[in-house]
């Protein structure tokens, strides 16, 4: 199915380019004829969203649904999955520690983009000062943050055995300068 859509998209693009060229007798557009097309295969914004919230049969589709169309297509599915997954969301009045009920939380997550501030501290979540969703640092313990938001309930104190994997840092120190990532093993 996806392949079919891709093929159709390619054909349309080829058609558009061809029309362009035939309308242009001075051949300035010849570059367009040879311009390679690259077609979407995988994407991500926030960590672990496709893995946790998307059903197996939808995973490839989620990867090839552009973010501006993900919310309408996936928010209600995410909500169903969240409520099935977490006892912290088994009452309709339940919220996570951000005060989001299941609808608000999954509406945010279904559009899988990373929100990043250009004006200061960047972090997925920093409990020490409450910085939230202003980027993603290498050191951010994003899985524990997500487990807490999924299982931790209103005060991060529900389901404690499931809301922290107790791996809090990388196995190698990150660099303070470019390229920031640690050297390979």
């Amino acid at each position, binding site marked *: 199915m*996806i392949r079919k859509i891709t093929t159709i*998209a390619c054909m349309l693009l080829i058609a558009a380019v061809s029309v362009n060229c035939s309308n242009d007798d001075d051949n300035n557009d010849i570059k367009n004829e040879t311009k*390679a*097309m*690259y*077609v*979407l*295969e*995988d*994407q*991500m*914004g926030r*960590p*672990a*969203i*496709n*893995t*946790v*919230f*998307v059903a*197996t049969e939808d*995973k*490839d589709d989620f*990867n090839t649904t*552009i*973010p501006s169309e993900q919310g309408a297509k996936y928010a209600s599915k995410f909500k169903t*999955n969240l409520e099935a*997954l977490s*006892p912290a969301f*088994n009452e309709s009045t339940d919220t996570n520690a951000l005060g989001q009920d299941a609808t608000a939380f999954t509406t945010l997550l279904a*559009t899988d*983009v990373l*929100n*990043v*501030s*250009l*004006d200061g501290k*960047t972090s997925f979540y920093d409990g020490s000062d409450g910085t939230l969703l202003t*980027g*993603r*640092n*290498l050191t951010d313990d994003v*899985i524990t943050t997500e487990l807490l938001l999924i299982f931790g309930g209103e005060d991060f104190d529900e389901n404690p055995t*499931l809301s*922290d*994997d*107790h*791996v*809090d*840092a*990388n*196995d190698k120190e*990150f660099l*303070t300068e*470019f*390229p920031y*990532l640690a*050297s*390979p*093993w």
Partner: protein
Amino acid sequence: MKTSKILLGLATIALVSGAIIAADHIDAPDVKGGTSDITDFYAFEGASASNLVFVANVQGLISPENSASAKFDKDVMVEINIDTDGDNIEDLVIQAVPNGNNMDVYGPAVPNETGGVSTMLDAKFKSSVAVTTYGTTQIAATVNASLVSGVKAFAGLRDDPFFMDFAKYTEIIGGTATSFDNPGADTFAESNVLSVVVEVPKTMIGGTGTINTWVTTKRKQ
């Protein structure tokens, strides 16, 4: 709150998501284990507060033994998408495309088209950096076209920066464990990924405010 309810919930999600989890490693059947499989995406303020850093990693769980032969796929573009006006449609892109022993990095610049199909940006937006060979420590210098002066790029193997007790999570959703261990064990310890790191002046991506960003891999047709 009851254990039985928790286990029921976890059993359900095991059916929903399959018994795999990671940041985005091996997330879906079509890309799992392939050369376009994104493992992670980061965006953070650089060592200079004037810059933002994007990290896009692909092809995870590369062992040290397999690292010398690991390489970027010449037909896979890693594209960083930047929405500056809040509609979740890319206003700017950065495109990393392997070119021989180099990684060519185009942008940030307005894309030729938005959505699922991309063509390469014009060469006037090109930076280029040698792909760092496994086993060497020197970080290669980036060569910039004048329009993208100030863009710094790295491409090559790095330690996978992702950390999680994935093995225990798998046991929990498989029903053979009921809680995480403390301390947990990092399943991604001592494994490498292929990384593309691009540091850009914030002035090139909107300057101020909030951006929405995501990474895509796209295959040449």
